[in-house]
């Protein structure tokens, strides 16, 4: 039997012999479940709720639909449950994008700037065709929430 097989058995056995269940932490980590990609004719702004329900993301790519392998930019805002923009939206906020099927993200990190009630992010580049996800994470205390949008880029 290969060493990898023994590793499997060992890992399973160790997992099975675990002790008491650990208590859930104060905040669940953001999930990375894929959402349905937004159709190209989805009206703007595109919207997504954070996984904890703490904020809503409204996002406008430019150009729209997002082009393959060409620089583009985003403007987006984070709204509370009353539809009001969150205060200090850039504080403890992160933007990222990833190809979940490929296991990699972008090669660049966009610059974020708050202007006219929106956060402007530029440049972004989706260099490969396929499913891309944009993540907006916001951390308050021990809780990080994620709003995400999926895009098919061709």
């Amino acid at each position: 039997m290969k060493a990898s097989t023994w590793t499997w058995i060992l890992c399973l056995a160790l997992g099975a012999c675990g002790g008491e269940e650990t208590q859930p932490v104060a905040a669940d980590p953001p999930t990375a479940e894929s959402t349905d990609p937004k159709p190209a004719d989805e009206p703007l702004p595109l919207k997504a709720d954070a996984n904890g329900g703490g904020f809503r993301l409204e996002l406008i790519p430019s150009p729209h639909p997002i082009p393959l392998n060409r620089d583009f930019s985003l403007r987006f805002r984070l709204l509370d449950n009353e539809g009001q923009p969150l205060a200090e939206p850039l504080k403890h906020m992160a933007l990222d994008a990833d190809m979940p099927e490929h296991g990699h993200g972008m090669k660049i990190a966009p610059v974020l700037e708050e202007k006219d009630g929106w956060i402007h992010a530029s440049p972004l580049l989706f260099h490969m065709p396929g499913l891309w996800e944009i993540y907006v994470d916001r951390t308050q205390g021990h809780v990080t929430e994620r709003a995400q949008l999926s895009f098919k880029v061709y």
Partner: protein
Amino acid sequence: MRRTLLCWLCLVLGLLWVFSDKKPETPVAPVPVTALEDPWPLDLLRHLGPLPPLPADPTNSVADNPAAAHYGQWLFFDKRLSGDGEISCATCHDPEHGFADTRPIALGKALGERHAPTVIGAAYQRWLGWGGRADSLWMQALGPMENEVEMAGDRQEIAHLVRSDPLLRQAHEEVYGEVPKDVDTLFAQLGKAIAAYERLLIQKDSPFDLWVRSILDLPGGDPTALNEEQQRGLRIFLGPGRCTLCHLGPTLSDLEFHNNQLPTHPDGPRDDAGRYQGARLVQESPFNAAGPYSDAPEGEAAERVRALVQSSESYGEFRTPTLRNLARRAPYGHQGQFPDLGSVLRFYNTLEDQDLRSHHQEQLLQPLRLDNAALGALKAFLLALEGRDLPGHLVHAPVAPIRD
């Protein structure tokens, strides 16, 4: 308690899987080759061709200046730019071999670490060099001049040469006005002139370009430009060959970087940081698009280089090469590890000799397992990406650095 039960269940299922004779095989090449009469995926084809006009380079104010191109052509072949007067750009970027190198690993003043890629069509690239150490043609042209294993020159001596050689000085003044006192400015100007020449090294109107024009109802098309085998190869390229994952865009490259676990050439280093190092080099250089020698330090290219990330993901990644004009520029790969096209295709077909190193690697890579007929068709298509020959006057040194 529930968790413990779940774990025991996992253990039992795991053991059943381990001792089972019927393990699922990794699915490969799930996309069938479409028949010749099937409709073509026009949206995909539009990404591949025909070759569009060259993108502008606002970082280089003389990018499309004919006098600069002529001066740059002289400089490209001028061995006096090297430390010992024996090496020019054309030494490794040989016009006889598609402006690439016949050696797997480039040999300048000393043996390098990578293969010298083609300059033909380089003006379409977003990043230059296998690791993307430059963000413009002109920045790329400066690197080898002072690299100790390439031309091993010195910008002070090169500046002295330009100031003291009457013809060089006259050519420089024709393009830029007065020769600048600042050595770095003068050095950057030399790179920009070489870039202006390199922007002329474009082989247009390949059989694929002519054929795709007809398919897309564009003027100048020729539906017979690809024969049946080449069309079958194109369908494999678009389908089960999975080539367009990276080779997508008018140069048949995504212009970005991947770690495809290529085998190491015996003369090349096994450990090469690739893009990880290139990203740092281009960001740190004063000659990048955002730097003081750029003619558009607030432009799109400058914004991109500022946003570049030196991520551990990029360790060992190399730029996706263009697939245009392959015929005359063997060997292939960032270390020239593949002596011919057949060996490149065999590698991707079997992943034999794949060098599995640490760090992030391309997850989508899997053996294609195409048969010989399919590989032959794929090769036939790739060779149909050969554009028309360059005009004769561009493939050798001009008579003088200034035009008649």
